């Protein structure tokens, strides 16, 4: 108990000492935090880029390079560092000869348990969605989370049609979800029995996102360039 009394003795109410102690601890803590932040910043940056690249390479088969573009309020795309979280960003993909192959687009919507965030690849030359990847989902393990694993469901996104109308202003047939085994058109997303809501959500997210993004990107497909500024 004598140590406890020690504490008591040392602090006979002087507010100056309180202030010194708090400021001292505050400065020390701030220093530690800043040091850690600076020390780990670079590595965290590389790891995050790697994870993102992995996802983009996943949805755009055959690409070897990727570059971030952000959407301006007029709907045009300009190269960006992707740091501004309030902007919609897309990831352009290029193959080893630096030819533009397509764009990976992020989209999200309310799933069964929480918001589902996905990334899909759009190829403006074949006018199809060519890949799909779940960035974030809290869907039920073993049931809803099959949207990220089920091979049959994934095969929906090998060549999902998002063809534009002849006047090139909008998508001819909006992407819609259908029941498992009910797919008859190239723009339908076949669901998973047992993961009905989750798989239907993915179909709806794609339907809404493609309706906006696909016409914009199709018209600007020549402006995505590996070296332009």
């Amino acid at each position: 108990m004598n140590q406890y009394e020690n504490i008591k003795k040392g602090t006979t109410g002087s507010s100056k000492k309180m202030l010194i102690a708090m400021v001292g601890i505050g400065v020390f803590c701030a220093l530690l935090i800043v040091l850690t932040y600076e020390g780990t910043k670079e590595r965290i940056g590389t790891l995050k880029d790697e994870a993102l690249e992995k996802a983009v390479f996943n949805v755009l088969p055959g690409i070897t390079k990727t570059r971030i573009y952000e959407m301006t309020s007029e709907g045009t795309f300009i190269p960006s560092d992707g740091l501004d979280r309030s902007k919609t960003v897309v990831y352009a993909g290029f193959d080893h000869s630096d030819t533009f192959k397509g764009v990976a687009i992020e989209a999200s919507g309310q799933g069964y348990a929480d918001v589902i965030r996905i990334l899909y690849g759009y190829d403006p030359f074949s006018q199809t969605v060519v890949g799909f990847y779940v960035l974030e989902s809290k869907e039920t393990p073993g049931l809803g989370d099959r949207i990220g694993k089920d091979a049959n469901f994934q095969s929906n996104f090998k060549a999902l049609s998002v063809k534009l109308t002849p006047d090139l202003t909008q998508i001819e047939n909006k992407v819609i979800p259908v029941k498992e085994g009910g797919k008859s058109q190239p723009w339908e997303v076949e669901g998973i029995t047992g993961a009905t809501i989750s798989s239907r959500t993915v179909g709806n997210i794609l339907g809404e996102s493609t309706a906006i993004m696909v016409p914009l990107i199709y018209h600007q497909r020549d402006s995505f360039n590996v070296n332009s500024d």
Partner: protein
Amino acid sequence: MNTESYWSIFINASLVNNFVLAYFLGICPFMGVSGKMETASKMGGAVTFVMLISSVCAYGIHALLVAINAPFLQLISYIVVIASTVQLVEMFIKKMSPALFRALGIFLPLITTNCAILGLALFQTNKGYDLSQSLVYALGAGAGFTLALLLMAGIREQLEFAEVPNVVKGTAITLLVAGILSLTFMGFSGLG
């Protein structure tokens, strides 16, 4: 950017992803004060109140930290600012409304450092909600917390008359009941 509707945010925070039964936040008060309906409802009110305050605080701090580009100070400033704001509010209530203070006051210092409060601040930042969305989120989370607490208190009041085997008495039976409640809340999935 987040365009979730207010209704969906509220349902999500209160039922589908209930803070206590799905995220396990605020388990300490959930176990501690769910013995009686009366204390449970007061505690629920106090938590909702603190959640609303800290939601506003967290929104402000986040905007400030983004402006000065210091994300590494997020956690430390959240906890310090929320704790001190609640302290100030507590003193204010004590002065302005002694009756309200007697009803909620003793719980306020207990819950400032409760994980549900800090969890709310962190989640709303992660989800990128704007100010009004954050407030709805806080309201939903508070309502969900109160609901879970009240349900638990109701069951535990009945449990006092039940013959519980010695080995399950105490925390174990409370956890089992919480597990069953958590299962029933899973039925709300898909509502949002």
